[in-house]
């Protein structure tokens, strides 16, 4: 998880969580009650509701699970899978593993910054794309690799990015 500003947390934490989402959270917590190490599973399923974990939702999870908020933050901030910030409709993952880095991963990141104002952990103004930097997607032979949602694009050149991104509406 990338670092989140305290101002954002303060603004978000006391927002009301809609009743339907509360119900979903309660169900998830009840389904996992009594299971060892349920916190990660609960958080994973709760993130599935809206694609990220708003601070107010974490407060609700803490209330239902009786796990202290600080402990939840410890888990959420450790796993890069979890996000306190909203994600784009399509999540772009750019591989910066050794092979992809050497073959131009950094150039891809720079182009995304220049053309789309996207930084790692950031989101475009229209909410369409968000960007994550990942360590290895496990296909070094196809490097440099980017993944958009569940699609993997291989041997990507910075100049092709515009065409690739235009495939996603």
């Amino acid at each position: 998880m990338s670092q989140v500003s305290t101002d954002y947390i303060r603004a978000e934490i006391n927002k009301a969580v809609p009743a339907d989402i509360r119900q979903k959270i309660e169900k998830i917590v009840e389904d996992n009650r009594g299971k060892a190490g349920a916190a990660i599973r609960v958080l994973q399923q709760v993130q599935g509701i809206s694609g990220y974990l708003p601070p107010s939702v974490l407060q609700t999870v803490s209330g239902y699970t009786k796990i202290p908020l600080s402990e939840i933050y410890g888990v959420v901030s450790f796993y890069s899978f979890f996000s306190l910030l909203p994600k784009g409709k399509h999540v772009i993952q750019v591989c910066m593993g050794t092979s992809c880095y050497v073959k131009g991963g950094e150039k891809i990141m720079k182009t995304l910054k220049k053309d789309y104002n996207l930084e790692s952990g950031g989101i475009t103004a229209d909410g369409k794309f968000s960007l994550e930097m990942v360590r290895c997607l496990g296909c070094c032979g196809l490097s440099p690799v980017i993944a958009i949602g569940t699609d993997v694009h291989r041997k990507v050149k910075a100049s092709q990015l515009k065409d690739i991104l235009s495939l996603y509406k």
Partner: protein
Amino acid sequence: MSKITLTINDKQVTGQEGDTVLDVCRNNGIEVPTLCHFKGLTDIGACRLCLVEIEKERRPVPSCTYPARDGLVIRTHTEKLETNRRQILELMFAERNHLCPYCVASGDCELQSLAYKYQMDNVRYDLSWPALEVDSLHQHLVIDHNRCILCGRCIRACDEIACAHTLDFGNRGWKDMVCADLNQSLGQSSCISCGACFQVCPTGAISAKSGTYRGKPEEFTGVDSACTICGIGCSINALVKDNKVVRIDSPDLASSRGLLCYKGRFEQIYDKKNRITKPLMKKDGKFEACTLDHALDAVAAKFGEIRAKHGNDSVAGLTTSQISNESLKAFKGLMIETIGTTLVDTLDGDSFRVIHQGITKFRNDGKLDIEISPEEIFKADCVLVAGADPLTTHPVIGAAVLNAYKKNKANIIVLDAQKNSFASRSAVWLKPKQGKEEAAIKALTDSLKKVDAGKSGKDAGLDAETLVDAAKIIAGSKNCVIIYGEGIIKLQNPDVIAALLNLAAVVGKSDKGSLKIISLKPQGNSRGAWETVGLCGMQRADMSKVKAAYIVFADDGMADPKVLDAFKKTEFLAIQASYLSPITERADVVLPSPIAIEREGTYTTLDGKSVSVSRLVNPPDGTKQDHETIREISQRFKAR
């Protein structure tokens, strides 16, 4: 427990089964350095300074977590271990900013002391200079992450002693930090401000806003006393320099009664500006300073004059419940025995009378010892909090509830029309309609007795299901404690309290036969005041015909200027107070009084124990202890 024999550094030493290797070392005078270890907290073996070599172990092991066994052969100070320790210290110094001259803890820092001990005159690694936040938004505490060595003591203290678990590690990895809640500022988090984290912090990472840069520990004198703020009677140890309190610590933080709260630890240190240091007399509507002799004579003479003219009951007395038992006895002596009035009361007299009448309704004698000690909360597996918010009024009791909640998995049942700090943690929140508390309590009692509670439940605005839930939880518990406070007392209805006592009787008694119920009395010596003064004036005294009054306010922060409305037609008002306020404005004579940290004597805790209180600092010159001032007036009155 059986004895075990170990060999440490070629010497035979003994220990107890269950000890760790570190315990055995320390009990035998072998000093093994530590940073993350704190007596009473769970050891985690994080700092690696206490590593020792044990025969048959492949590599050095942390002595703080290694259980001592019979026959172990241990070496604690080999050259390899000592080199290791120095290297660990160097890495700690390289990791964040540990430039001692600029640190609040310099001179009182465990990291610094160890660096001196290991003669660490240089650091062989590049300093990493991270620029981390300093969080100073909390009212009393400052967290400087740059000084943090991530030992986790504060986190364990917050979890194990305060049971708040506001702090934990976040952003684990290279950017590991001690975080409050969702990495919020401590002042905006769920922190209960008990200050346990501050007391256990080995470096200057967590410091208090009071008492920083006041000097080195060897310049301070320690004073053992008890806190007099809210009537729990927590033991405190104050460090004093130049007649100023530098900090207040708990003498035994890890014990069950070791926790302090923000009131006792931080708030009472501050002395406000408008302090009264000299006796004042009103002349032509303005106060003029005078000698104590003059003021005392004037008070005695005026009381004598008015009594002679209008009779004994033309003089009345009112006192705060913050002063010591000695002062209260002196007050009673002056008003009842010397002057002979029947009009005496305490400022929290209304609370006393309603509790007293409630108990009388329940079992005739009205004695306050019907209650159990707050100690019992630690053993509770169910706590009913009725009309009280202990985390704000009596924070140590609040923390005891959190302790039971965490360690005994106790269910918390809240019975309150208003939301309190436990509402989010409660298993059931019984939310009666405003003013229908009695019906709600009766409905709960009936549900417990398996009597139909539908009618009274409906009357209170509670639905049947919630009532059944609450009754089930209480019936299923072995040790249920009821706590009630302000919210119930302010209703001024003895029937509500009698109903609560009835409920407590149904829930079950303690081994000694008292009810498992605790009333949160409003002031530091409420119980003492009620037993000394309260019982003398059982009715709300009619002060409207009073011609003269003597009022002891001391530093009572809760006193409402409205109490003076009864004295509108009073000819003469003598007030003993620590600070100038709208209350003292009305006085004809003002006598100086010491503040909490300057008082001495005995106090009665809310469960009836007597604790002795020493003064932490001396009152300003010319300010005597309250009982001395009052006795002087008695003597002068008699000698007229």
